[in-house]
């Protein structure tokens, strides 16, 4: 198939011989045609270029080559541009055909420039072609030398912890002195049976040296008083906020 593309096709007016193989799109063809004008790309005749491109397309079609759609779209666009450029200037034209022609020229110059510098880049001394580095360098890297941080305190407290762990390995819950609620109810009920008059609740507390036990007893005795009141077996009274809490048994 590529044989077919290699067929030379004649193209007027510069006797430019073209083959379709290897063109990279219509801009590529246009650039080749423009270069064939052998003038500075900034002074190129866009009209001549358009004619050349249209001939190129016509030739290609007469040879029944398959042309990609973008070649034909470009041909149609250039034909339109040509007609605009040939008409008397129309200040209302949008876009301005002159501007479009200039833009095309700019694109050709730019692509040409990129090809040129691409070739110049590749012509430089390339690593692996003209210059070479060592194949397997050892590499340089900083290695860290560990400096262990541990103070005597760390050491001793660690040992202390180990020893402590060994001696107290069984954790036993210490029994705390409390007055349980059912015990408090039973006790309060019994005492109320004896004292029939209003009595401050504090007077029903068991005597103890242990302040924790006294606090516990106060709490459970208070709750016991509430419970007995709820059951209708006692009355509670307090004349003012934070005042003395009085309790009385109900027969």
């Amino acid at each position: 198939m590529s044989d077919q593309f290699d067929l030379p096709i004649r193209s007027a007016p510069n006797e430019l011989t073209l083959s379709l193989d290897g063109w990279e799109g219509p801009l590529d063809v246009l650039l080749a045609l423009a270069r064939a004008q052998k003038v500075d790309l900034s002074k190129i005749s866009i009209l001549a270029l358009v004619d050349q491109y249209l001939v190129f397309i016509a030739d290609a079609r007469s040879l029944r080559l398959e042309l990609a759609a973008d070649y034909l779209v470009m041909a149609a666009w250039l034909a339109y541009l040509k007609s605009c450029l040939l008409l008397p200037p129309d200040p209302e034209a949008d876009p301005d055909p002159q501007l479009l022609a200039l833009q095309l020229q700019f694109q050709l110059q730019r692509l040409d420039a990129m090809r040129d510098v691409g070739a110049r880049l590749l012509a430089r001394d390339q690593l692996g072609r003209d210059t070479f580095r060592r194949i397997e360098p050892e590499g340089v890297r900083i290695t860290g030398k560990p400096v262990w941080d541990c103070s005597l305190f760390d050491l001793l407290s660690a040992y202390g912890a180990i020893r402590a762990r060994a001696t107290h390995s069984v954790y036993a819950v210490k029994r705390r002195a409390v007055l349980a609620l059912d015990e408090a109810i039973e006790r309060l009920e019994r005492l109320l049976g004896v004292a029939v008059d209003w009595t401050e609740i504090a007077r029903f507390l068991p005597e103890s040296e242990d302040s924790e036990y006294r606090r516990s007893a106060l709490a459970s005795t208070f709750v016991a008083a509430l419970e007995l009141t709820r059951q209708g077996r006692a009355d509670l009274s307090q004349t003012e906020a934070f005042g003395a809490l009085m309790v009385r048994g109900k027969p």
Partner: protein
Amino acid sequence: MNPLLRELEAMLFAAETPLSVADIMRLVGDREVSPDDVTALLEELAESYGPRGIVLVERGGRWLFQTAPDLGHIIRPTRDSPRKLSRAAVETLAIIAYHQPVTRPEIEEIRGVGVSAGTVDVLMEAGWVRPAGRRESPGRPLQYATTPHFLVHFGLESRRDLPGLADLKAAGLLDRTAPTELFGEMMAAETESEDSGAEPDAGVEADA
């Protein structure tokens, strides 16, 4: 020979990748030496290698030893020959190098033809091209730029040393659109038109 010079020489010889002055400062440790001292020593060392078959060069701020470029023919037979780049790849590389950061649609616009999937891949595989963030424009297209290794490979001290860069810039050929001042002379022949600046992009993209 200056002891530090010898050390730099050994470092650069053993390094797997080109070394920056900052890399060297890190390796040198906390000796009393400034980055400027290191740079001066590197230049001195490079000069001492001038006539030799091995040369010390700076590429993108990093230094490396390589064989002298005129001796390629001596080494080439002993190495695998590098893969030849397609025309499309060369053009795409040039466009990325000179227009970076550049998006794929921009590359396609400059070449007037679609960029096939393999082209940018080949350049990335060679280590010359890298993705360089997204453009803050509709669709947030990915941009491409060259790598430090690109400079090493093509023997460029910096991106400013790209061949012909200044000329291209002066001619406006690195701009995204046709520079309007270029139009000046040609516009002069034409009647004044209000929309001279409009839609310069409509150009060849008729197939878009």
